[in-house]
């Protein structure tokens, strides 16, 4: 997909002016936060589980090579195949080869963010294979030729009237007179249309929430059941998973499952948690004849051992974006690539480079809500700061900002000069602030005064006030 992350500011301005989007974003603010809070309040052990979930992932990452090998051995023993993909290109080639092996024409897909990351749908289409998204939200945005705006609620940027218009535009075999006003009718229509696709598909592709080294199982969690239809009805089930999805044991998966659904949708468990191990067994009356796992690196191994390693604990629950004031304001598409919100602001520069994704870590007020709700204790603000530092080191931020900061640093390192400069500035502002003690416009601060007045300071600086009260003389705060 086209990357528009460098244009985050322009994307945001457009998002703020988009009335439909702003209406839809109200559902994020209203929905996710309360549901999560209630679910967590109902489980006294949540904080302990959260700590344990973090420790499990840290252990798995510290021994990732060994768990990957153990996992692979179990998949092979259960009759499955494992494909290792270093890059998006490798992964796409592996998938198309599998499709070609059965002359696949239709592929159904369960929800998978890494297939977005590797641009799989476009690639399949270009190669004569028709991908059909089966998650309701993913199906809707596929009809619109869009990408997910949220990692667990891909169509959260849309209102039902927009969905109705799309269904009427695409499902032309159905009568024009049908009523589609209610979400129930829209869901019913998608259910009927997609039922046929499940049976038509030659290959079903799902993502993975976990890969279990102990048993060689892949795990997906869904509410709709589409991921299950996708994997039990076609001849071939392909699992797309990035390497950090590994957990050691079934118990480890169970511990993290307890924090996953609660953090995501406020459910105690998603409706369907499905463990898939290999192809159908002798005597099984259903299930896929072939089971393939594509293990994708695509930049993850380069995060190991760096200040961004903790990001690999992410379980894609979406809590960080659900609680982010920036996401609430501009939605997911403004972020310009696959992963939005705070987790996207950290992950995007890691995966596509700080030159393209470096704008995103600036899209934060550092309010810290993302870290406070992250079930895996990922220090998202700290990592965004790391990216800002790298962006600065590489001279990628705007020249005015760089020179401004350099000027400030020059003055700040010279206390006498700093005191003089601040006291002069403060006095000047106090003087020119007039009777209202406010500025409607101020040079170099147009971004501020465009939307609100700038309050004029008192005539003395903090240091001067402190000195008067005798605090500075003591050399420490009282």
């Amino acid at each position, binding site marked *: 997909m086209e990357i528009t992350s460098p244009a985050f500011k322009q994307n945001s301005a457009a998002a703020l002016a988009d009335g439909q989007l702003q209406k839809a974003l109200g*559902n*994020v603010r209203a*929905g996710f936060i309360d549901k999560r809070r209630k679910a967590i309040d109902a*489980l006294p052990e949540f904080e*302990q*589980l959260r700590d344990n979930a973090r420790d499990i992932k840290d252990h798995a990452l*510290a*021994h*990732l090579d060994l768990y*990957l*090998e*153990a996992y692979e051995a179990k998949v092979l023993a259960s009759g499955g195949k494992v494909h*290792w993909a*270093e890059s998006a290109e490798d992964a796409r080639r592996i998938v198309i080869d599998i499709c070609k092996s059965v002359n696949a024409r239709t592929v159904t897909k369960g929800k998978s963010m890494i297939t977005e990351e590797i641009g799989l749908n476009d690639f399949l289409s270009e190669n004569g294979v028709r991908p059909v998204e*089966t*998650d309701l939200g993913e199906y809707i945005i596929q009809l619109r030729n869009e990408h997910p705006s949220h990692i667990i*609620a891909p*169509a959260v940027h849309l209102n*039902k009237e927009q*969905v109705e218009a799309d269904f009427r535009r695409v499902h032309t075999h159905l009568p024009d007179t049908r009523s589609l006003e209610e*979400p129930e009718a829209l869901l019913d229509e998608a*259910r009927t249309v*997609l039922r046929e696709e499940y049976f038509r598909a030659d290959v079903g592709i799902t993502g993975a929430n976990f890969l279990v080294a*102990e*048993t060689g*199982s892949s795990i997906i969690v869904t*509410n*709709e*059941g589409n991921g299950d*239809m996708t994997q*039990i*009805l076609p001849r071939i089930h392909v699992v797309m998973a990035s*390497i950090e999805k590994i957990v*050691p*044991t*079934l*118990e480890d998966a*169970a511990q993290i*499952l*307890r924090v996953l659904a609660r953090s995501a*949708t406020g459910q*105690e*468990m998603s*409706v*369907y*948690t499905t*463990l898939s*191990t*290999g192809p159908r*067994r002798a*005597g*099984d*009356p*259903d*299930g896929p004849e072939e089971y393939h796992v594509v293990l994708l*690196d695509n930049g993850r*191994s*380069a995060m*190991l*051992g760096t200040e961004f390693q903790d990001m690999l604990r992410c379980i894609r629950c979406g809590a960080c974006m659900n609680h982010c004031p920036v996401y609430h304001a501009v939605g997911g598409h403004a972020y310009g690539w696959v992963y939005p919100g705070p987790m996207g602001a950290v992950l995007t520069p890691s995966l596509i480079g700080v030159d393209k994704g470096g704008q995103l870590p600036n899209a934060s007020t550092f309010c810290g809500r993302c870290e406070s709700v992250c079930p895996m204790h990922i220090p998202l603000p700290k990592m965004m700061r790391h990216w800002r530092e790298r962006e600065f080191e590489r001279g990628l931020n705007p020249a005015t900002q760089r020179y401004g900061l350099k000027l400030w640093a020059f003055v700040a390192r010279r206390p006498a000069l700093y005191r003089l400069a601040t006291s002069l500035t403060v006095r000047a502002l106090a003087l020119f602030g007039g009777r209202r003690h406010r500025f409607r416009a101020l040079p170099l601060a147009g971004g501020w005064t465009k939307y609100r007045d700038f309050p004029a300071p008192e005539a003395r600086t903090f240091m001067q006030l402190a000195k008067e009260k005798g605090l500075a003389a003591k050399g420490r705060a009282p």
Partner: protein
Amino acid sequence: MSGREAILRRVRGAMKVHAGDTGRAEAVQARLANAPKGVIPARGQLARSERVDLFCKMAAKLSASVERVSASEAVPASVASYLRERNLPAALRMGADPRLVAMPWNQQGALEVKSGASDGNDEVGLSHASGAVAETGTLVMTSGGDNPTTINFLPEHHIVVVDAADIEGDLEAALERLRARFGKGEMPRTVNLISGPSRSGDIEQKIILGAHGPRALHLIVVG
């Protein structure tokens, strides 16, 4: 170099792994062998009868309907009345689970019992749960000829028989049962942990039951 070698080499390089370091391998083997349980919520740690009550309560909260019968012989009559009450055709699909097959279906004269996997044309499917979790009202379903996975998803109504003795307090205990049944490190092709009927909140975050899977989930708890 294959993708496999390249990825593993990069991972080892990033983690600064030394060739002679046997401690890491031992830590991995120990965790895989011992599978530590972690934090088990107190909620499900109850005596048997309260555990069964909790399971029924939690399942009902997830919009499943729940009925309790005293013995498995009562299941066919219970199924037949479920179908009648909802004006459903007197037909169902089920697998070869001996516990289901042994039930007195012939006492429900008009009820047609089809066996084998579902092809998507069944209004009602019947399965026997392998286990259940009281903590969250979750069913544990295992694939095979006895309970084909398609029956869990394709019918409009999914009726599941749960033996009260199979209801565990917590998810970890249910997983331990799977391990005891299939062997350490072994799994059937598919394990479905099912918590209520299918649903979607993808349109304006409004939760609607009956997405791609069953619109209704009915549990018959035996014992």
